[in-house]
């Protein structure tokens, strides 16, 4: 063994890249993407900001957003004018439950993005994927190899 490393994600990316990860993570967690968002009345809502994630503006549109839903809970991911990635959770549940759902899904979005980026960049640097599977507690396990002369 050479080294064991723990890395914390820091994401700066364009909206289309993160939107693809939002869709992938949401579908894998049983959500569906909403094309038309109806405003619910009298529901609890909570806003979460991801400190380690910014979305780079690539156009003048400041209203990039995507809403997903599952069992009456709607989660909206968006990029604000400052480029911060925001998560808003709405539904007829207690605030703690909404917060847990939002944090879990936002984490999965980051996981999906990091997985895609690691696979792509390591392949660009000559690594081949030997193994890829799901581990305990929804972790993604990936083994890559590079052949050196």
């Amino acid at each position: 063994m050479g080294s064991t490393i723990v890395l914390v994600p820091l994401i700066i990316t364009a909206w289309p890249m993160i939107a693809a990860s939002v869709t992938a993570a949401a579908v894998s967690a049983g959500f569906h993407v909403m094309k038309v968002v109806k405003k619910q009345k009298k529901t609890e809502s909570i806003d979460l900001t991801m400190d380690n994630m910014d979305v780079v503006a690539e156009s003048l549109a400041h209203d990039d957003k995507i809403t997903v839903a599952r069992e009456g809970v709607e989660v909206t991911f968006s990029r604000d004018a400052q480029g911060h990635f925001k998560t808003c959770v709405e539904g007829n549940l207690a605030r703690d439950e909404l917060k847990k759902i939002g944090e879990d899904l936002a984490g999965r979005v980051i996981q999906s993005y990091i997985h895609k980026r690691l696979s792509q960049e390591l392949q660009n640097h000559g690594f081949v994927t030997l193994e890829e599977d799901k581990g305990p507690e929804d972790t993604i396990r990936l083994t890559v190899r590079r052949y050196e002369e």
Partner: protein
Amino acid sequence: MKNHDIEIEITKDGKVHATIRGAKGKGCASYAKLLEQIVGRIQSQQPTAEFYEPDTVVQIKPTIETRQTK
């Protein structure tokens, strides 16, 4: 021919645990740097005995595309 392996575990909040096998010294450090460029920030690093063995030469391209362009 020598194999350099990286075993990666991505937790459900996006944190990455990586174990580098087969690369030594600066070679191992190059892979750690590459992972840092891809993921974000190294929270902790635990070099093992193999890390201190004589170097393996590893060539890593210095630039990484981080933004998607149209």
